[in-house]
């Protein structure tokens, strides 16, 4: 990997346009390459200036993120982006994926876990994910729950935009209905509020 293309990836990352492989590549390279790391810091400062964000240059978060993804399976290479729509979906997903980890084709429902145990991380959702995210070992989670078409391989295609949006709506709707719990309404309210503006 040339340093030029790394810088391009870094630049894409700064613009929230990096795909998950690029994110990985940059994080990995930053571990060994101090000049790339200082480039990153400079880009950060520049972007903060452009966006009028306060910027504390001494905090380096890449280590924590790298640690968080160290145990994640390496995703399959991203498929070619075929349309502009998918490009923008991809960009949205990069921004959102730190808060929502989505596994498609988890195939939780198959009988014996023999097929499809290699769950796909949806290609538009990089694995810079929650440390506590899918603890579920795909395929193995629900052994014993039968389903007629259990032999079908897991879906390989990226999550459809409508479905991603639907899940998002469900999450908000669920968070907004705090009744039936002993803990005060304030807690589900805070959950709902934390979903806004992401």
């Amino acid at each position: 990997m040339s340093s030029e293309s790394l810088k391009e990836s870094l630049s894409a990352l700064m613009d929230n346009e990096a795909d998950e492989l690029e994110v990985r590549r940059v994080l990995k390279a930053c571990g060994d390459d101090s000049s790339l790391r200082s480039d990153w810091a400079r880009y950060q400062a520049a972007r903060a200036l452009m966006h009028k964000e306060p910027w504390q240059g001494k905090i380096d978060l890449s280590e924590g993120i790298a640690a968080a993804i160290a145990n994640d399976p390496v995703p399959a290479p991203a498929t070619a982006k075929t349309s502009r729509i998918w490009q923008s979906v991809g960009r949205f997903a990069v921004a959102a994926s730190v808060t929502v980890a989505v596994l498609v084709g988890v195939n939780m429902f198959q009988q014996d876990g023999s097929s499809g145990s290699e769950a796909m991380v949806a290609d538009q959702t990089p694995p810079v994910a929650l440390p506590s995210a899918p603890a579920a070992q795909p395929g193995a989670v629900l052994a014993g729950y039968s389903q007629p078409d259990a032999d079908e391989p897991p879906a390989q295609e990226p999550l459809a935009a409508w479905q991603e949006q639907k899940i998002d709506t469900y999450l908000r709707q669920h968070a907004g209905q705090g009744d039936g719990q002993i803990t005060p309404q304030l807690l589900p309210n805070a959950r709902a509020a934390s979903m806004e503006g992401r």
Partner: protein
Amino acid sequence: MQAAATASYGLRSCLVVGLVSTALLFAGPLMADEAETLLKKMTSAAHGMSYQGDFIYERAGSFSTHRVWRQANGEVVERLLRTDGTPQEWLRRNDALECTSAPTAGAAPSDRAMLPEQAPTLQQWYSLEVLGSGRVANRAVTVLSVQPRDSFRYAHELYLDVDSGLLLQALLVDEKGALLERFQFTNLQLGSVDPKNLSAASTCLAVNEESVVTSLANDRWLPAWVPPGFAPIRREARQSADSDLPIVTQIFTDGFARFTVFIEPLVDGQVAADLLAQLGPTIAVSRRLDTPGGAFMATVVGEIPPVTAGRIVASLSPDFDSQAFIEANP
């Protein structure tokens, strides 16, 4: 990069739990009856008290700050404002959402909490223990541990104000001891609230009553399995934008944990992937149901372990009766 910054809080918070726990002055386990008394006090305080304060909410991938004003004298008015990022606001009057700047969140009417009627059965599913005392928002608190008796639900740690009984801090912890979310007051003032703080900004949009929904009598579409102790509390049908059939939602709760089942008919061309998504403490598991009466997407969303959610969704599979669904939702 901002998102990356918040992700690291999730990592750090696990360490914080350990520190907080060791910082407690352990008073030894007390009677579970005392714990139950504390819970009852918490519930009545949450409904009957006036206060204002600031709190933080943290989960994997998100850290946010909030302010609440609550006035309870006959009528209860509660205003909630997010104090970082884009302003987000909610105003509730007598538990009904009056306006919101986030139209999709909390648009449903809200019932009162189930307690205290449900309290006696809580201890069947959770063991309650008073861990000791501590300090939150410069106030003395009693720390209550709520441990599940099976693996179908998460553990809670509740920090209750000694004076008022109010919940000042709540932690949700998974089966491996990892912190899933933190809710914590940083300051609290009890007593009357200045009325001018109880009116929302103009960006807070009135909630459209038309989005309120019909209730259903038929329950044949319910999951064949839910974890013991979970009871259905509210069922609704909302009109789907895509289909003549409604989206049916059913909420279940065991008193501490809550999940919602969504059943939505798929229209032509919608290909639904089976998926598992996680947003902090909240899990969503979807699966496609192909029935003679058509294809549906069933989704369970809740603060429950992924395995529990998957099992609930799986139980819909063979027994889901699409004919009953269609008859019940003409």
